[in-house]
């Protein structure tokens, strides 16, 4: 009998795990936002868990859901060896919506964290290039927040010359570019 993901995480990182539950067959770990990177590293590196794939990062804006903290940052993981998924959730407050970046753990985290910053305004501390991914560089606000009005258009016509990005790449700050 292999141990469940929640049990394994609790055994090692009891202080970082706030709650675990099963959601339609997927193990959910609610974690201390300050320890997100520790938990994710553990899930990736523990041999019998081996969550080698970070499939998605997103956030949920709980503005009208009455949550103690406004945002939840969500990580969807997949373990090829277990054929099992896991979801790691960290609640962060509106005034200080930040967690540590995990770009060093999975290469996929780079763009996924950029998208979450772009759409929800979650700050990923330590990300080498936290710029918008889908929206225009001059866009103001974060469109997937519930208080962003869908009808609020922004006229943005200045193309991005990307030279700041190229400069970062030249200086070795973006090793994959």
């Amino acid at each position, binding site marked *: 009998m292999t141990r469940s993901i929640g049990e394994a995480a609790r055994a090692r990182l009891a202080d970082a795990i706030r709650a675990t539950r099963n*959601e*339609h067959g*997927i193990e959910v770990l609610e974690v201390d936002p300050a320890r997100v990177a520790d938990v994710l590293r553990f899930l990736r590196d523990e041999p019998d868990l081996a969550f*080698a*794939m*970070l*499939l*998605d990062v*997103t956030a*949920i*804006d709980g503005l*009208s*859901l009455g949550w103690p903290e406004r945002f939840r940052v*969500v990580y*969807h993981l*997949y373990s*090829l060896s277990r*054929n099992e*998924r896991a*979801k790691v959730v960290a609640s962060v407050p509106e005034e200080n919506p930040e967690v540590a970046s995990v770009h060093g753990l*999975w*290469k*996929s985290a*780079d*763009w*996924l964290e950029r*998208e979450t910053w772009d*759409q929800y305004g979650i700050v990923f501390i330590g990300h080498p290039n936290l710029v*918008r*991914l*889908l*929206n*225009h560089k001059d866009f103001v606000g974060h*469109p*997937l927040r519930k208080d*962003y009005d*869908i009808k609020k258009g922004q006229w943005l016509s200045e193309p*991005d010359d*990307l*030279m700041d*990005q*190229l400069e970062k*790449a*030249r200086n070795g700050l*973006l090793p*994959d*570019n």
Partner: protein
Amino acid sequence: MAAESGETTRRAELLDAAPRRGAGSRTESMVLNLGPSHPAMHGTLRVLVELDGETILHAIAEIGYLHRGFEKSVERGTYTKVIPFTDRLNYCSAILNNIGYVKAVEKMMGIEVTPRCAAIRVITGELSRVMDHLIAVGTNIVDIGALSNFWYLFNEREKIYNVIEDLCGARLTTCYTRIGGLAHDIHEGFVEGTRTLLKELPVAIREVERLVRGNKIFLDRTIGVGAIGAEEAISWGWTGPCLRATGLAHDLRKRDRYYGYGDYEWDVPVGENGDTYDRIFVRIYEMYESLRIVEQALDRLPDGPVNVDDPRVTLPPKGEVYENIEGLMNHFKIIMEGIQPPAGEVYDATEAANGELGFHVVSDGTGRPYKIKVRSPSLALFAAYPRLVKGKMIPDAIATVGSLNIVAGELDR
């Protein structure tokens, strides 16, 4: 001997005396935009490259040119109104997106679709996968100069579109599934039409396979180009044919066995080197496997209804709507208030044409989705693109982008 060496010395003297062309000049790199409006950049992809000659020193990818706010827009309507939006994710295989979305909502509501519905979803989904792969392979090899293959493959794709058009009334924007079933059962003639496809498609695919397999230009342009190892591909979050091209037989249809995929006999083709060549051939072989699945599914297509008997999601028969008040109310509530999954969250994924297509749905118990996040396979693939082309040449970059089959609708949402 002596004369020869004298001549060599003289030539050296002449060269020395000649003014040095380019002496004191310096080499400068060139910055060039690939896309966003260029046929080779499939849709609306933009990559800024810094070049030394034709070698790419740095590449910066910028996406979002087709960002339509899918995730914002779907929060305004009912759960049913999301289905046409999903057509526009990977528009080359719309039915696979339709299936992926409704499957997530069904999981949330604890609904199991009828056997006939599952089989029809498999058949139409696999036909869509074949269409998607035909486009991917066709456009990939036209980008490297093999125009005739493009026509051969697009002719076949057109035949599938004719069947899909008869089925849904639309070629690309199919909107064929519903939560708990399908928009309607298959039409008379669908089975025969699909059986004709099963005869004609392999002939055409084999023809193209033979045209390219021994073609030296094709081999030179694809073998070892844009190669990536399995471990790195996993770190980038790659799934689908591109991950399988690295040698890993990871396919959600085999792993999760949804819709009875485990009951059909079929194989998962894998590559070896994770290069453009492997990605093209994994797609070619997957088409044969998809057709195998379709054939078996047609052979044992079960009878029965295509929609579940569940008043929470399925519209009542028209007779009841017109003739009794319960039916009328039920119809009205599903249309006006919408289907109401219980409050909570779900993440569910299917194997779409490009890999794992996931839907993370959050419900607050009302008839409108609180949040829907699409896990797009193209995003993970394109994020790795700068790394794949760095240090390579421009023609390699063009061959590589085609083999990843980035679909902007799904990439930018």
